[in-house]
């Protein structure tokens, strides 16, 4: 599992280097460990210039069940919410904008239910995203990808 996370984190960093910096940007990368059949999703966020708060929700792919949600940054929320979804909320920046540099907020681990063909790449569908600053809602992007080898 540690190897998987390392791969995922490295991939996030490399891909974020080409992301636009003007708007807040969530990056979500998933990967299936074919040996354990566990699915890992790591969500990072790079803030736009005025973003003090950010949030994104994803539907949990069919056939998977959340087994752990780990916050990678202090005061970040990484939780399951009603409707078989997961929610990622950055710590509030208060009056200060969040870091423009990509920051890992959450790592989720899912178990495949019996009988699920894990050879198929799971799809995390974004159901809600919002970036906000002191003057209101700001533009916000989400990129989701599965990087299972």
């Amino acid at each position, binding site marked *: 599992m540690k190897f998987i996370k390392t791969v995922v984190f490295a991939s996030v960093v490399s891909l974020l280097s080409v992301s636009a910096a003007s708007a807040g940007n969530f990056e979500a990368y998933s990967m299936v460990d074919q040996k354990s059949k566990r699915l890992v999703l790591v969500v990072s966020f790079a803030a736009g210039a005025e973003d*003090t*708060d*950010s*949030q994104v929700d994803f539907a949990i792919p069919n056939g998977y069940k959340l087994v752990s949600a780990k916050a990678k940054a202090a005061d970040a*929320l990484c*939780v399951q*919410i*009603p*409707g078989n*979804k997961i*929610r990622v*909320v*950055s710590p*509030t920046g*208060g*009056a200060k904008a969040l870091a423009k540099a990509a920051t890992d907020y959450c790592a989720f681990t899912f178990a495949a239910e019996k009988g699920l063909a894990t050879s198929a790449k799971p799809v995390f569908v974004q159901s*809600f995203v*919002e*970036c*906000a*600053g*002191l*003057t*209101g*809602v700001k533009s916000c992007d989400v990129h989701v990808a599965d990087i299972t080898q």
Partner: protein
Amino acid sequence: MIRKSHMSIALAGLALFASSQAFACSTSLWGAGLTGGAGGAQAALGGVVAGQPNGGGGGTATRYSGVCGLRATTLGQMVQDGSPAAEAAYIARFYVHANMTSGTPVVFRAAEGAPDAANQPLISIQYNRANQQFEAVNRTGTVSAIGAASSALNNNFHHVHLSWTRATGALDVTVQGAGSSTPSATANLTGFSSTSGATGPDYAQLGWVAGTAAGQINVDAFESRRSTAIPRLCRGDANNSNSISVADRAAITAEIGGTLATGQPDANESGGVSVTDRAIVTALIGAGATCAGTH
């Protein structure tokens, strides 16, 4: 402060508004159906103050929703509206923040007749500071407790919802506030009969309507109808988007910094906005709370 619009069933919408934080808060929507009409001589009495928590908008008042509220600091400071007319059924709600040191002030009254003539106070809602609970008073002066003592703690906002029916003389009241996700008091009362089978509320008063007391009363978000219960406003929806999200958290941060939020930022309904409210909204976000829920 907001004004609801339910054209077919509305009796009196909220009568305080401010189009932006730069403009004055106003009571000009009150007074309809009374002498002088909306915004006329009978709309606001006794120097009741329409204002904002930060002193903007023409005065200082604690608000629940929007940027304006209404504050009464002495007996007789109130707003009135005559939109009702011998109603057979009357449903009303308001938010009240009673910060009293003593007494039992009447904060709401629906009455028959006219304010400047002989009238019959049909329904009075008063706040009993000693017991920290609301009470209902009928036309003959009988006082009925709404819930138990300490069911409405002083110095907190409470949503008071009442529903009256002429045919039975029944009055149902629900109180919820102080950050609670469930009602703190309910009462199904009887004995609230009108003077005849053809009479009912002709006008409503809100503020410090009657009663000897000491302290201040802030009211907000009044609405009345002939049918259909009036839902509570979405607690914690600071940016008035009808959802709970990080934008509400940012709006609370902005208010802490001096820019008033336009929704309901006072998540713990304490009468002020602070980092505590932001933490509560964070918890609501984490719980997946929605404005369709009951939080």
